[in-house]
């Protein structure tokens, strides 16, 4: 027997507790920016998309690293070649996905009358720059979480997802409102 429910709970619960604490903080940022969300609903639509893509890519990366570490074709070192190939692919994958989705969201919002006074270039600019910053940091935290947990003898599969999605959620929401103010929307 490899898996044991008590071990799963023991590994999972502390990190989930930590994740939940940070997510409540992310929720507070949303609460503070409720006016922007109320006036520009397109950004409320964007939040799950930004977070989902960065979370997904971080999880793909983490799961690949975890399997590699378990089987032994990846070593937990900064200069591991397969790790770098994975990191590079993750960032490329992120940029392509964000650009396609930004255009889809914009026209979806225009079509359903949700968009008020935001240009296509402005929205794509805000969305993709938020996404790029986000994907770089999320990919790095994924590698960091996988390597550290593996070195400590914990299963990276239990650790990567919480770390990656939490980092992604808080940074995604923060970077989005940062980019909105840099681009000067709503002022």
């Amino acid at each position, binding site marked *: *027997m*490899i*898996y044991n*429910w008590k*071990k*799963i*709970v023991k590994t*999972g*619960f502390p990190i*989930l507790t930590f*994740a*939940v604490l940070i*997510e*409540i903080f*992310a*929720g*507070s940022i*949303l*609460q503070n920016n*409720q006016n922007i969300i*109320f006036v520009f609903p397109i950004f*409320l*639509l964007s*939040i*799950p*998309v930004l*977070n*989902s*893509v960065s*979370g*997904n*890519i971080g*999880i*793909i990366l983490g*799961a*690949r690293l*975890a*399997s590699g570490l378990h*089987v032994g074709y990846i070593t937990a070192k900064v200069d591991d070649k397969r790790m770098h*190939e*994975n990191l*590079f*692919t993750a960032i*490329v*994958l992120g940029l*392509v*996905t964000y650009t*396609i*989705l930004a255009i*889809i*969201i914009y026209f*979806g919002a225009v079509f359903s009358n*949700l968009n008020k006074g935001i240009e296509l270039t402005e929205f794509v600019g805000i969305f993709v720059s938020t996404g790029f910053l986000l994907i770089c940091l999320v990919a790095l935290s994924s590698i960091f979480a996988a390597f550290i947990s593996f070195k400590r003898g914990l*299963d990276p*599969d239990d650790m990567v*997802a*919480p770390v990656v*999605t939490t980092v992604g*959620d808080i940074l995604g*929401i923060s970077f989005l409102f940062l980019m909105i103010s840099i681009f000067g929307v709503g002022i």
Partner: protein
Amino acid sequence: MFVKEMVKQSLPLLILCGLGAVVAGSILGLMNAPDPESNLFIRIPGLIVVIPAIIAMRGNISSAFGSRLGSAYHLGVIDVDNLWNKELNENIFGSFVLSLLTSTFIGILAYITSFILGVYPNPFLIISIVVVSGLISGIVLNILTIGIIYIVFKRGYDPDNITGPALATFGDIITILCIYTSILLLGGLI
């Protein structure tokens, strides 16, 4: 080669998941109605604060579950002919206990946070919304996870490239729907 393989297997699913996230966002949009009378975030103070936490909990637990099953597959512990075994049962039970513990924790935390933020929600309502939506979505997602894993095995894909995104996305939509449902169920208490 593997860059190409990773992009080929992941990109379509990532786009699909992104579209799923748009659906998830649209349900949030329904809750964020332009009319303050029917805007749930205005009617239930503290609700917008717990939403990221509930969604994250759900996504985390099911993604870790999917990711573990991916490694189990690489290690040869489970496969398409030997899916429902003791190892899978331990994984299911573990993620269910985690859901219950974490939902309760979020509920209590939301109650405490409401005081710090100076919002004064109905603590009973907020805690019930979190626990009820956490449990309903947990049950639905555990069933869905096993279904996805089965299909992925059948097709012979690498589960690491598929299960995480698929679960996180279905998880988000299902979780937001469950939050909405539990608000409707508990609506008499508002």
